[in-house]
C-alpha cells in the first residue's frame, strides 16, 4: 500500500461523502417536488431554476441556525448521537460498487481503480452489521435528550429496526443462497452472467426487502419514531440546527443506501443484465448512470409510498414484522434452499 493507493482511497472517501451529501440534498428536493406534485402543488420553485438551489438554501439556513442545547441532556451522548447516525449511514456505502473497475496508468504504474471503496467477501454481512448500528443514533438521541417523547421515539425506532432487521437479513440470505457469495461484485456479476436480475428469481425476497427497507429507514408508513401526533418529533425532538440536519441527512442517506443495495442485489447493480446480453459490457460512465437511475427509481418508490399510504398503528407494525414478514422470509429461505439443493443434484 503505497502513497498513491492511499491517495486513491482518500479520494474515494471524499467523493463518496460529497456525492452522498449532494444526493441527500437533492433527495429532499425530489421528495418535496414529487409529493407536491402528488398533492397538486408545485413544490419548491423559488431558489434557482425549478427551485434547484432550494437544498443549498436549506443547508445554509440549517448551518447558521442557532444550536439549542436543552438543559439536562447528557451532553456527550447528545452530541454523539447525530454523528453516529450520520457516520453509520455513510459507512454502509463503502462496499457499494457503482461501476466496473477501470485501469489507468499513474506514474508509470498500471492501476486498477474500482468504483467502490472496498470489496469484502463479507460485504453483505458488513452492510447488515452497519445498518444494525443505525439503531444507536436513534436510541442515544432519544435517551440523551432527557425527554420522554424523545426516549419513547428512540426506543420505538430501535425496536422497529431490530424487528425488521431480522426479516431483512433472512430475505437477503435468500439472495446470498442463490448467488453463493456475500461479495457485492459477485452478486452483480452473477446477475450479469445469468442475464437476469435477482428480482425475477427472488420476488418475495425483494418484496420483503422493500418493506423492511422502508421500516429500517423509518419512513412512512413506518415512521413512528417521529410520529408527530403522538411523539412530537420523536427522538430528534430536542435537536435543532445542524444537529437536527445531521439526523435528517442520515435518514435520507440511509434511503439512498438501501436503494443502492436494492439496486445492487435485486436489479443488477450498475449493469443492465438483460440488455448487456446484446450490447456487451457498457463503459463505466454508463454504469454510473445506470446505477443512479436505479437508485432514483427506488427513491421515487419511497416517496410515492410515503405520499400514498397512511401510517400504521405501532402494535400492528410490530405484529406485521414478527408475524408476517419474518415467517414469510423464513419460508422463502427454506424454499430457496430446497430448490437450490434440488438443482445442485
Amino acid at each position: 500500500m503505497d502513497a498513491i493507493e492511499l491517495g486513491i482511497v482518500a479520494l474515494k472517501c471524499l467523493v463518496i461523502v460529497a456525492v452522498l451529501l449532494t444526493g441527500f440534498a437533492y433527495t429532499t428536493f425530489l421528495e418535496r417536488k414529487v409529493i407536491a406534485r402528488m398533492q397538486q402543488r408545485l413544490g419548491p420553485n423559488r431558489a434557482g431554476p425549478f427551485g434547484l438551489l432550494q437544498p443549498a438554501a436549506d443547508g445554509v439556513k440549517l448551518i447558521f441556525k442557532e444550536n439549542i442545547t436543552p438543559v439536562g441532556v447528557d451532553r456527550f451522548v447528545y452530541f454523539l448521537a447525530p454523528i453516529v447516525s450520520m457516520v453509520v449511514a455513510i459507512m454502509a456505502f463503502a462496499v457499494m460498487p457503482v461501476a466496473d473497475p477501470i485501469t489507468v496508468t499513474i506514474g508509470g504504474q498500471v492501476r486498477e481503480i474500482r468504483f467502490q471503496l472496498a470489496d469484502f467477501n463479507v460485504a453483505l454481512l458488513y452492510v447488515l452489521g452497519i445498518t444494525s448500528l443505525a439503531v444507536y443514533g436513534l436510541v442515544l438521541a432519544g435517551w440523551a435528550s432527557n425527554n420522554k417523547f424523545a426516549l419513547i421515539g428512540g426506543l420505538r425506532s430501535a425496536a422497529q429496526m431490530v424487528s425488521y432487521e431480522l426479516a431483512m437479513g433472512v430475505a437477503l440470505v435468500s439472495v446470498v443462497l442463490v448467488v453463493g457469495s456475500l461479495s457485492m461484485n459477485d452478486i452483480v456479476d452473477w446477475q450479469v452472467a445469468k442475464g437476469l436480475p435477482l428480482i425475477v428469481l427472488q420476488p418475495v425476497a425483494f418484496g420483503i426487502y422493500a418493506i423492511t427497507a422502508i421500516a429500517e429507514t423509518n419512513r412512512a408508513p413506518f415512521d413512528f419514531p417521529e410520529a408527530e401526533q403522538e411523539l412530537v418529533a420523536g427522538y430528534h425532538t430536542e435537536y435543532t440546527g445542524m444537529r437536527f440536519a445531521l439526523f435528517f441527512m442520515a435518514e435520507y442517506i440511509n434511503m439512498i443506501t438501501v436503494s443502492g443495495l436494492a439496486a445492487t442485489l435485486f436489479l443488477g447493480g450498475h449493469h443492465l443484465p438483460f440488455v448487456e446480453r446484446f450490447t456487451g459490457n457498457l463503459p463505466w460512465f454508463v454504469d454510473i448512470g445506470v446505477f443512479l437511475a436505479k437508485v432514483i427509481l427506488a427513491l421515487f418508490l419511497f416517496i410515492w409510498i410515503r405520499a400514498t399510504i397512511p401510517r400504521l398503528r405501532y402494535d400492528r407494525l410490530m405484529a406485521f414484522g414478527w408475524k408476517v414478514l419474518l415467517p414469510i422470509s423464513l419460508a422463502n429461505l427454506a424454499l430457496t434452499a430446497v430448490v437450490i439443493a434440488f438443482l445442485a443434484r
Partner: protein
Amino acid sequence: MSGLDPAFLIVGALAIVTAVGMILAKNVVHSALFMVAHFGLTAVLYLLLSAPFLAAAQLIVYAGAIMVLVLFVVMLLGRQEALLDEPIVGQRWLALAALGVLGAALVRVAALGVPAAPEGGTAVVPPAFGSPAAMGDALYTQWVLPFEVVSLVLLVAMIGAVVIAHFQRRPRNEKAGNPAIAADATEIPSPRA
C-alpha cells in the same frame, strides 16, 4: 515481521482505551457506548487477523444485538447512580494487586507468542482463510453437531430469558423477551441525576 504494525497499534490502543473507558465510565450508558466502540474495534482487529466473517459476525451480534439489548435494559431500568463507595473492605486494593500480578503474568505468557503453523508457512495466509465460505464449510461439516447444539442453547436461552423476566405482577402486555414492547410499559428514565 518485527515492530508493531501501525494499524494494529492504533486499533489495539483504541481498544484498550475504550475498554478502560468502559469500566471507568460513571454513566452506564457511557459504558455501553464505550463497549460498542470496543466491539467495533474488535471487529477491525478480526479483520486484521484474517477473520472477516468473524468481524462481520462480531459487528452484527455484539454491536448490533447484544449491546442494543444492554442499552435497552439500561434504559428500562432507569436511573443508574454511580456507586463510588466501596462497601467491601479491601476489595479495591486486593483486586488491583491481584489484577496487577495476573495481568503481568498473562502479558508475559502472551509475549512468548505461539508456535508458527505446523507446515512452517507462517508468512502467507491464504486469501480464503476465515472467509464465509471457509467458515461455512467448517461449521456445516466438521462442527455441525456443536452448531446444532449451540442453536439449541440459543433457543433455551431465549425461552429462559422470557420466563425469568416475565413476572406475574406485570401486566400481560409486557414481554421481557422482546424488550421493545417492554420498554413502552416502563417508567421513563432520565440520563442525568
